[in-house]
């Protein structure tokens, strides 16, 4: 069966606010709520997922124009796997990876160079806590350039 939805989003319709759909995958209900609120206030439609499995289900139903992915969900590498899956299905969909992992826990994303960042398949990496301004800034960087 041809995957027409996937085809549609190869070039996200960045100029039409109504068509912006963000998939937010985070197992922390607080962050899910907060990011969802922020994106709604930025004019996005929001689809929420609390695990990688739920996010994959949502990917079957929706073709997101943007994905916000928490790195550690049900497993510590769930976010990596999800990023990979999103890019496989929708190569043009930008991904913002959010993480509370810091240098202390052994993951130091701040120090990653450009080529290493492509390995996580993310267009932006933000460390929690994430401010409204940061998300809004990333969105305008990714869509309004």
């Amino acid at each position, binding site marked *: 069966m041809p995957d027409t939805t996937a085809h549609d989003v190869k070039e996200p319709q960045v100029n039409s606010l109504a068509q912006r759909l963000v998939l937010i995958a985070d197992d922390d209900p607080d962050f899910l709520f907060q990011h969802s609120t922020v994106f709604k206030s930025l004019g996005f439609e929001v689809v929420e997922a609390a695990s990688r499995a739920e996010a994959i289900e949502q990917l079957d139903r929706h073709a997101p124009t943007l994905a916000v992915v928490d790195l550690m969900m049900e497993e510590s590498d769930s976010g990596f796997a999800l990023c990979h899956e999103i890019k496989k299905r929708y190569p043009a969909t930008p991904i913002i990876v959010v993480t509370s992992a810091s240098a202390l826990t052994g993951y130091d994303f701040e120090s990653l160079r450009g080529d290493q960042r492509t390995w996580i398949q993310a267009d932006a990496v933000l460390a929690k*806590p994430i401010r*409204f301004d940061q998300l809004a800034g990333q969105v305008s960087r990714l869509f309004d350039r």
Partner: protein
Amino acid sequence: METLRVLVADDEQGMRLGVRRVLRDLRIEVPDIDAIAELEIDEADCGESALEKIARHTPDILILDHKMPGISGLDVLDRINGKYGDMLTIMITAYASIETAVRAVKRGAYDFLAKPFTPDELRNTVKKAAVRIVLAKQARRLADERNKVRLQFMRTLSHELQAPLNAIDGYLDLIKNRTQGTTLDAYNEVVDRSQDRIAGMRRLIHDLLQMTTMESKSRNRELARVDVTKVARDTIEMFQHQADGLGLSIHLHREGPLVMNAVEDELQIILQNLISNAVKYNRSGGQVHVNLDRNGTTISLGVSDTGWGLPPTALDRLCDEFVRIKTPHNRDVPGTGLGLSIVKKIARLYSGDILIDSEWEVGSKFTVLLKDNQPEPCPDAQPAPAPCLAARA
């Protein structure tokens, strides 16, 4: 098996060979830690060569002759001057001169042997040094291990303490940026959620204090006769309201007293944690069963639920600190991940343990076993046999 390196520094070849022969096949048993040490022997024929070998590859034990041409044994000791932390030196003094021995010990030698000495004297002196070294190595390994565990704990703890702060920070940011408009009422949910996280942080701090209290308790706790049935009844009452709200029924399967030697607060903490879990992780309309029993000197406190159970892979680490098993059913259940580790620490204070029996999608049973160090002559019959009979009737 531990291999210790021995360097024999003596200008007489006969002496070096003799020492080597006596020590070659020596197996040293280290009491207390059940370890065995073997020796690997190297030689140096003068003080200079000894110093060079020590600098290159420091031995565990140095057997050092005092009287050598060139630099003497005492000079070697001076130059070593505590530089090689764990190396122990056994000084061989030539004329049974007590002065040299005393000077050697003052300059950092661990022990001395006076010529002429018997093979047994040599063996015993080396054994003593070897045992000391093996024990010191073991102590250092344990300290390293403790540091590692502590570091891991602090990392997890700081993560757990930061999580609610980050969440509240995020909610305040939503308000600050007026993400829901300018009417205050629109933010009620945001405020409620922030307060939930504050309550969670309070629980975490409470549990942390409780846990460290249990860890620091000495053996001299003041035990008294405590009726476990009464503690259970009071604890159930505490949770009755919450259970009613979820349509749960809690059943206590014991009527008569069950008396043991214990600290009442500790029994309360065990039962509060187990019953709280059984209520929180149940399904609406479910049941909680509390079973109290005695088998000889062992008291068992069992709490079972009709919840969703746990995946079998989770059981091993369930009592570790900060472990919370995430399943689709318990996503919104608040908890600190410390309750069961506290229960386990208390059980240990009673030479006891916690047994977990869980079936995925069916329910879980947690049983805490405690040793009663002063059981009544007639179990449960106290003070007169009458209530004992009544309870069984």
